[in-house]
Every structure is written in structure tokens, then in C-alpha cells.
């Protein structure tokens, strides 16, 4: 049942040059976006992976990498940065007003920080403006980056970011903000260039939140989510031998399976737990599928170390 709902091969949306990846906290958004970035880099694409976090995860996934505002190499073909709002504002002001010294003073002024914090959406505008800049950079006749993958903020903040261009244009029609809002709108609306991807696990709250995010974005903006990656999808252990497997879980004796363990009862109870959760997961996947968006499968990986998890996920994410 799950198999038919969840695509096991990543669709063409994952080949777009800019991927905006969001999801509820704790569902594996950073893991999946990092895995997508490493895979792009492994295919020879010059790739930029961008986090936007006060406590970035990049250093956990890539032990020799320290995420900060300045671009830093992670591995062959892969660069990373942590796009925090404050340094982005400083850089933006310096570029926009060509007054590096004065603008730094202004940007670090408490009053200015409070006001920019109070202006709705400025914390969306400036980071997206940075992405716009990186997307537009050229290297000779080719784009500087073959691929930019944004590990965007969690769903609530991501919704604010996606609402931002229209909201900004409702309030201001001239000035830098309006110009930037138009540029960002052009990127987000460009379905050749940009893919909006939501990550979720098939648990109750994340699914609720994803349904909510998708329906709001689709109702309130001109943008569309092109895919939802369901992470931590439990394995279908029964697969093609389901009857036999369920019978064994139920306590039927099966010499072939009995040979696998010294403690069949506890193994049965544990795998029984997995099977019941797998069924609940496929029901939730069916709920998500009502959103008319393609669902992709990312497996549950029974590892806990983040570097191991990333390696396994890169291998497990099926090629497009």
C-alpha cells in the first residue's frame, strides 16, 4: 500500500537548480537536504548547501566543516554556509549603499536591529536576497553554482518567507524592499529553476503541519510545492511474503525464521511494533496524498550517529 503512494525514485523536480527545503523541526530536514547536496556534488555539480539556523547542524554531518556566514568548502564540489540574518543585513547594506564603514555601524546599531526585526519579513527578504545573488553569479558564461540547496527554516517561518514577496508588495510599492520582493517572487515562481520541497515524517503532528503548510501556501501564494519527502518510512519486512510473516508474528512456528534468533518472543514483539507502525504510517501517507503532491520515500535508518546517518541516507535516497 505504502509502496504505491511513495515514489522510490526522486522525480525531475530534484534536478532543479534551486531547491527550497523545509519541514517541521525534528523530521530530518537538514539530513535530507545535506544528502541531496552531497549527491549533487558527487554527480560533479558545483553545489552550495545553505543552512539558516542559530545552531547549524553542518558540523555534525561534516566533521571538518564549521558552518558560518562565509562560504567554506565541505568536500569536492560542495560548499556550505550558514545564512544568518544579521550578517546578511550588514552585507546587503554594504553592497546596496556602498558605504561599508557607515553601514556596519548602522547595521550594528541596536535601534536599527530592533526596527529591522520589527519590519515584517525583512528577515525573509535579506536571506532570500542572498540566495538570489548566488543564483545570479556567473563563472564565465556558465552559472557559478550548478546547484543551490537551501535548508530553509522550519514550516512556520518558511510559510512567512513564502508569503513575504506578496505581503511586502502589499505594503510598499517602491524602494529597495519592493525591488527585492519582485526579484525573489520571480525566483520562487520560476518552476524551471526552483523546486519547493517539504520534508515530513509519517507521524501525526508533522503530517498535520505539512498538510497545513501545503494548503496555505497553495491558497495564499502563487507558488506550489513540487514534492514531499516522507522520511523515516519503516521497512516493509513482510514484503512479498506477508501472510507467512504475519502468521509468524502471530506466534505460528516457522523453523526458517526461528533459526534467526535465540529469543523469538521478544523479537516478535519488537518486529510486531514495527509492523503496526508501518501500517499507521501508510494511513498517514494516504492522508498526505490527498494534497495532490508527489510523495517520495526516504527510509528509516536505524543509526544514531549523524555522519553514519548521512552516509546511509546518501546511499538510500534513490536516484532520479
Amino acid at each position, binding site marked *: 500500500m505504502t509502496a504505491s503512494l511513495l515514489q522510490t525514485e526522486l522525480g525531475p523536480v530534484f534536478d532543479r537548480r534551486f531547491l527550497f527545503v523545509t519541514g517541521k523541526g525534528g523530521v530530518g530536514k537538514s539530513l535530507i537536504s545535506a544528502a541531496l547536496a552531497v549527491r549533487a556534488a558527487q554527480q560533479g555539480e558545483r553545489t552550495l548547501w545553505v543552512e539558516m539556523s542559530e545552531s547549524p547542524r553542518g558540523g555534525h554531518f561534516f566533521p571538518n566543516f564549521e558552518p558560518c556566514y562565509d562560504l567554506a568548502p565541505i568536500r569536492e564540489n560542495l560548499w556550505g554556509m550558514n545564512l544568518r540574518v544579521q550578517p546578511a543585513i550588514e552585507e546587503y547594506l554594504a553592497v546596496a549603499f556602498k558605504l561599508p564603514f557607515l553601514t556596519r555601524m548602522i547595521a550594528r546599531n541596536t535601534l536599527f536591529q530592533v526596527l529591522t526585526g520589527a*519590519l515584517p519579513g525583512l528577515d525573509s527578504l535579506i536571506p532570500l536576497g542572498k540566495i538570489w545573488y548566488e543564483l545570479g553569479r556567473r563563472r564565465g558564461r556558465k552559472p557559478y553554482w550548478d546547484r543551490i540547496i537551501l535548508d530553509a527554516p*522550519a514550516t512556520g*517561518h518558511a510559510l512567512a518567507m513564502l508569503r513575504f514577496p506578496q505581503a511586502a508588495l502589499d505594503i510598499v510599492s517602491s524602494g529597495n524592499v519592493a525591488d527585492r520582493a519582485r526579484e525573489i517572487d520571480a525566483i520562487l515562481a520560476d518552476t524551471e529553476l526552483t523546486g519547493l520541497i517539504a520534508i515530513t515524517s509519517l507521524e501525526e*503532528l508533522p503530517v498535520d503541519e505539512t498538510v497545513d503548510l501545503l494548503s496555505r501556501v497553495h491558497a495564499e501564494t502563487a507558488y506550489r510545492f513540487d514534492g514531499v519527502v516522507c522520511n523515516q518510512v519503516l521497512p516493509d519486512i*513482510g514484503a512479498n511474503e506477508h501472510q507467512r510473516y504475519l502468521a509468524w508474528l502471530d506466534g505460528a512456528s516457522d523453523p*526458517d525464521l526461528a533459526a534467526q*534468533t535465540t529469543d523469538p518472543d521478544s523479537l516478535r514483539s*519488537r518486529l510486531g511494533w514495527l509492523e503496526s507502525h508501518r501500517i499507521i504510517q501508510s494511513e498517514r501517507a494516504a492522508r498526505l496524498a490527498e494534497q495532490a503532491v508527489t510523495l517520495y520515500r526516504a527510509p528509516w535508518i536505524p543509526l*544514531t550517529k549523524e555522519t553514519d546517518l548521512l552516509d546511509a541516507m546518501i546511499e538510500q535516497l534513490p536516484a532520479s
Partner: protein
Amino acid sequence: MIETSIANHKILIVGGSGGVGKTSVSAALGLAAARAGHRTLVLTIDPARRLAAALGLDGIGPDAEEVNVSLEQAGISVPGELHAMMLDVRNTLDQAVERYAPSTERRDRILNNRMYQNIAGRLSGSQEYAAMQQLESIASSGDFDRIILDTPPTTQALDFLTAPERLQAFFDSNLIRIFLTFSGRAGRGFFRVTDVLFRTLERLTGAQVIRDITEFFEVAESILEPFSAQAARAQRLLRARQTAFIVVTGANPHQLRAAAGFSSTLAEMGMRVGDIVVNRWRVPIEQDVPEVPEAIASDALADRVSYWGAALEQLTQVQTRAIDTLAADSGHLSIIRVPEMPGSIHSLQGLVSLSNHLSKA
């Protein structure tokens, strides 16, 4: 011990990173307090639909609802009372404006200001700010003798504490007076840096937004002091003897490390940590760590069973070792282990069983 935390503290704040089950633990904690005979309120932010339904919170507004009736119908006897309330950010801020506005004219000007309508409830930090305001109001009303606050769903546990402080800076009267002085034409040119600052802001946003902000500040100034005073009371409440934090975490090593870091930051900030609840721990069965085969899934059923059996076992071992390490490093803090539970916890029976696990530990 969760009983000790409940017995000694009037306010329990349930914090932790996103996706670890804070809301369920909050509800179960509320149930445990009500079972201990307290008149209890669980203030939650955005519960899963079935949990909301289980608590009788489905589709209701921001008023406290009594859950006892549904508990009794489910055959659960509770000596105290259990109430639940969902936080409505916009409504909380509107109510505070109504309470503190010096006149109805002022109140209406604030509520109708475009800036206020734009930022109330949407500004980052406003959910956390509203939660603190609501907590302070309820605590000072004296209506409940136990209040369980489920903190807003953020990725980082600490955001709950830092977001209101950042927002508080926005309400700082001095800053706003400076703004009002210098944003008017009369103020321009006096002070070169401020002048440049405003020109920068104008070029950034257009003059219109500056006018909106100025009007907002003009009308809002009259309620800033009571707002700030309430926020300051809320900050004190967090550090009061009657308040303790319950830190919820998942059972994986990086989650446990984050929880340990969060707990020590709380302590450094002068706040009390009651217990650390390790949620969704997979209880180990065997003693030896089995070998995990190379292939993630092979073809035959026996191989798959063997692989996943071994993988689950290894996972439990890793989790258990990490929890043991946390327990050894946390000294006097009590660590409550809640096993991964079969079936749904988003039902009254599920809550009862979660509450039993919290108390049994």
C-alpha cells in the same frame, strides 16, 4: 522524580527541541498532577488533532476546558481536576491591549493600526511572548494550583527563552522615544548617525513604512509600560521557586547531548530543572550487540527478519548507553525513561499509560 516536581512546583514548563513529544508529555504531566489531587491546567500551543480530541479541545477557543468529564467517561478516576487550554496568540495580544489601553479610543487605534495587525501574531517570537503573557496572567489569577506550560514548537529548545527577550527589546520605551524624536522631520539633521540611519531605513522600505511604524509607536507608547511590566513579571516567574522546567528529549545520542546542554543553560540562567524525560526509548532485550549485516534489505524473509531484529537491537543498545551516560553526568537531576509505546499515545488511554510511565520511574 516527577511526583517530587509536581509536589514542589506550582508551574511546570515543558521544554525541548522539536519533535520529541513535548505536547504529549505535557498532557500526561497534567493528568499526573490531577491524579495527585491538584486543580491543574495544561496550557498547550498546537496539539495534534487526536490529542486535542482526547483532551476535549477539538475546535474550541482559548478558554480553559475541563477534561474531567471525558476522563470519567473513559473510566479514569481523578481526585483533582484537569483543564486544558489552547494558546491563541493574536487573541492573547489583543486581550492584553484591551486590558492595558488607557482609553477605548487608544485601544481602537492600536487594534486598527496596520503595523499592529501585520506584526501581532506573525512576528517571530510573538508566540513565545504570548505564551509567557498568558502564563503570567493565569498564574496571577490564582485559578489553578498547578499549571503545565507546553512550549511552542521550535527546532531549538532555547528559542522559547530568548525570543520573548528579543521581542521585549522592541517594546523598550527608550528606543521608541528615540525613534519618535528622530523620525519626525524636526529631528532630522541634529544627529548625523541617526539621520543616516533613518535615510537607510527609508531607502530600504520606502517612507510609507516609516510612517506606519511611527504611528504605531505613537499609539502604542501608552501601553508599553504595563506590557513591559507584565513581561518582566513573567521573566521573574520563570526563575521563581515555584517554577521548574521539565526537559523532554528523544533517546538518540545527539538529542540527549542537546538536552544536557539545554539543562545546563537553564541552570546558568537561574532556572530550575526538575526532571529530564527521555521519550521513545527502545528498551533493550538482549545483552550482546548483534552484528548488523551489510545489506540494508535482502530478499528472503528470514534475512529481512534477521537484519531488522539485529538493527533494532543495536539501536536500543546505543540509546541505552547514551541515556546511562547522561544519567551519570547529570548528578542530582532525575532522568525519567519513557519506553517507546506500542499503539497511539494520542488518546486518553495513551495519556494514562504515558502518565503511568512518568510516575513509575
